[in-house]
C-alpha cells in the first residue's frame, strides 16, 4: 500500500506541531519528565508507519513520540502522558519515554539503548509461529549500533527468517557523541550484511524515499523474505533531551552551528511540501489547512492534559 504524499505530510506535521508544542511547558518547568523531541526526524516515523497495517507491531525507544503518533496513537493520551497525568497512555506511570497503545500495534518504548530490539524480535517470532502475517518494526538510533544485542538479534532474525524490520535512525549523534567517535565506519546498515540480512541506507529526511524503502521491506517480510535492515540518515533539530542541550544540558550540544544549519535546510517537512506543490498534489491552502488542524488538535490535547488529574498517591501498581 502506497500512501499519498499529502497523508505523509499530514502525519509529519502532526508530529512536528506536537513536538514543538512541548518546548514552552518544558522551559516553564510545567513538564518535568525528560522529553526527547523528534523534531527533524519525522520522515522516518511517518514513512515507515505508513507502510504498516494497524495490526503490525512497532517498538520504540526514548525518542518515540513520532513513532507513537505515526502508528495511530492518540494525541490526547500522548500529551497527557508527557504531563504525567492519569489520562495518559501509560496512566502517568511511564512518562514521555514509555508510550504504548496496543490497540494500534504501538507495543511500547523504553530508554535502555537497544533494549526493545529483542522485544521486536520476539514479536516477529510470535508472528511467525502464529502465521498471522504481521510484521514487527524496531526503531533505534545510531547509539544502539554499539550494543551486542543488536547483533544477536540480527543473527537470530536472519536464521529464523523473521518478519522484522530493523529501522536505525542515524541522527549522527549518540547523545553528545558524534558518530565518528563511536565507530570507525559511518555505514551502520552494513552491520546487517554479515548476518545475511538485506540491508540498505536511505535518505531519512525524504519521506517518500523512506516510505518506498519501508514498503518494499514490509512486503519482503510478509513473503517470508525478512528480516530487513533499513538505516535512515537523519538529524535531530532539538537537544538530545529537551529543546536545547545548551540551556538544559549546560552547553552539552557541541554540534557545529554550520552543521545544524545545513540540516535545517534539509528539513523533511519543507522537502515534502515542495514536492507536493511542484506536483500539484495539493494546494498551499490545503497544506495550511492541514497544519491548522494539527495545531488545533495539539492545543486541545494540552488543555485536556492540564485539566487531567495526576495519578492518585499511595498505589503500588497502576489499575
Amino acid at each position, binding site marked *: 500500500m502506497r500512501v499519498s504524499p499529502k497523508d505523509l505530510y499530514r502525519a509529519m506535521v502532526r508530529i512536528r506541531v506536537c513536538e514543538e508544542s512541548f518546548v514552552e511547558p518544558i522551559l516553564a518547568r510545567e513538564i518535568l519528565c525528560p522529553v526527547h523531541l523528534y523534531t527533524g526526524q519525522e520522515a522516518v516515523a511517518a514513512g515507515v508507519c505508513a507502510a504498516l497495517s494497524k495490526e503490525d*507491531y512497532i*517498538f520504540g525507544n526514548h525518542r518515540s513520540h513520532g513513532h507513537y503518533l505515526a502508528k495511530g496513537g492518540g494525541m490526547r493520551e500522548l500529551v497527557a502522558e508527557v504531563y504525567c497525568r492519569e489520562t*495518559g*497512555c*501509560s*496512566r*502517568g*506511570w*511511564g512518562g514521555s519515554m*514509555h508510550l*504504548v*497503545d*496496543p490497540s494500534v500495534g504501538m*507495543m*511500547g518504548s*523504553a530508554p*535502555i539503548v537497544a*533494549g*526493545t*530490539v*529483542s*522485544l*521486536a*524480535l*520476539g*514479536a*516477529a*517470532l*510470535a*508472528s*511467525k*509461529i502464529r502465521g498471522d502475517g504481521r510484521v*514487527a518494526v524496531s526503531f533505534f538510533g545510531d547509539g544502539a549500533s554499539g550494543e*551486542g*544485542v543488536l547483533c*544477536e*538479534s540480527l*543473527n*537470530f532474525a536472519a*536464521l*529464523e527468517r523473521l518478519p522484522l524490520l530493523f529501522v536505525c535512525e542515524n541522527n549522527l549523534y549518540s547523545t553528545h557523541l558524534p558518530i565518528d567517535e563511536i565507530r570507525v565506519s559511518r555505514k551502520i546498515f552494513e552491520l546487517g550484511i554479515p548476518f545475511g540480512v538485506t540491508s540498505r541506507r536511505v535518505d531519512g529526511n525524504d519521506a517518500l524515499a523512506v516510505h518506498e524503502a519501508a514498503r518494499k521491506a514490509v512486503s519482503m517480510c510478509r513473503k517470508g523474505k525478512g528480516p530487513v535492515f533499513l538505516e535512515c540518515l537523519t538529524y535531530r533539530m532539538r537537544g538530545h533531551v529537551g529543546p536545547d542541550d545548551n540551556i538544559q544540558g549546560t552547553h552539552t550540544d557541541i554540534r557545529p552551528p554550520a552543521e545544524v544549519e545545513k540540516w535545517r535546510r534539509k528539513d523533511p517537512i519543507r522537502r515534502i511540501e515542495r514536492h507536493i506543490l511542484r506536483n500539484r498534489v495539493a494546494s498551499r491552502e490545503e497544506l495550511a489547512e492541514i497544519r491548522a488542524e494539527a495545531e488545533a488538535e495539539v492545543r486541545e490535547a494540552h488543555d485536556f492534559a492540564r485539566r487531567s488529574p495526576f495519578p492518585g498517591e499511595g498505589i503500588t*501498581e*497502576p*489499575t
Partner: protein
Amino acid sequence: MTAKGRKLTYSLAINEALHQSMERDDSVLLLGQGVKSPWYVGNTAQGLLKRFGKLRVIDTPVSENAMTGAAVGASIVGMRAVVVHPRVDFMLYAFDPIVNEAANWSYMNGSRTPVPVVFWGVVNRGGEQAAQHSQSLHATFSHVPGLKVVMPATPFDAKGLMTAAIRDDGPVVFIDDRWLYDVEGVVPAEPYVVPIGRGIVRREGKDVSLVASSYMVAESMKAAAILEREGVDAEVVDLRTVKPLDVALILASVGKTGRAVIVDGGWKTCGLAAEVAALIAENGLCGGKNLIRRVTLPDTPAPASRSLEKGYYLDARKIVEAVMR
C-alpha cells in the same frame, strides 16, 4: 492415568508440565540453549520438539540477551514464552530483558500489557565446576519488583509450579536444581498448579523452624531426622516461592516454635535468609539472642576442587550444627 501414587522424577515432572501446558495452550513456546539436548537440560525437554515442532520448541544460538528479550517480546504480543537457561550463571547476560524490560513493563506502561513469560534457570553446580557454573541468584531476582521467583523442592511442586508460572500473567523466574532431577515423588498425571506465593510445612515440630527452599528442603528434612535423635523436634518449612514470600506461614511456624534456622543455598549478605530473618524480627518474633540463625553459603565464589566444595556447599550436618550451637 490418574492412579493414586504414580511416581515421577523431578525432571520428568517438569517435562510433563511443559507437555501439558503446550498441549492446553497453543500460545506456549519453549526456547533456549540446548532444548534439543539432554547435555543441557537433562530430560526436562524430552519429546517436546517432536510433538510440538520447531516453531514452538526452539534450540537457540548462544545469545542469552536477545533470546530472553525475544521471549519477553513474544509474551508482550500474546504468547506465553518459556526461555530456559541451562545454568543460572548464563542469565546474567539477560539481566536487561529480565530486570529492565519484563519486570517493569506492565508498571511503566500503565498495566496495559501483561508479560506472561517464564525465565527458567537451572542451578547446576558441584562436580568441580567452579564459580561460573554454580550460582543460584534467586535472591538477586527476588530483589526486583515485578518479578516472582519460585524454587520447587519436590517433583510434585516442580510440575505444579512450572504450570503455575506458565499460566501466570506476569514474569516468573523458575529456578530448579540439577541435584534434584533424579528425586522421585508422587506426581498426579492430570494438570494442576501449586499456587505461587504459598509455602508448605513439610514436617511439623515444636522446638525450631527450619525455613528452606529447593534442594535445602531435602537437607533440612535429613537434619530434622538427625535432630529428632538428639531430642530436638524440628519443623521444616518449604518456602516453594521465594518472591513473594508466604509471610503468614513463616510467622505462624516461628511463632509456634520460637526459634528459626534459615537455610539457603545462596550467599549470606543481602540474601534470602537475611530477608526471612528480617521479616521474623520485624514481626517481633525470635527477639532473643541466638534465636535466629542463618545457614547459607559463605560470601565467596564457588570453588572447583572437591575438597573445597565439601566445605562450601551446605548439607544436613551443617544445619544440625547450627541448631545445636
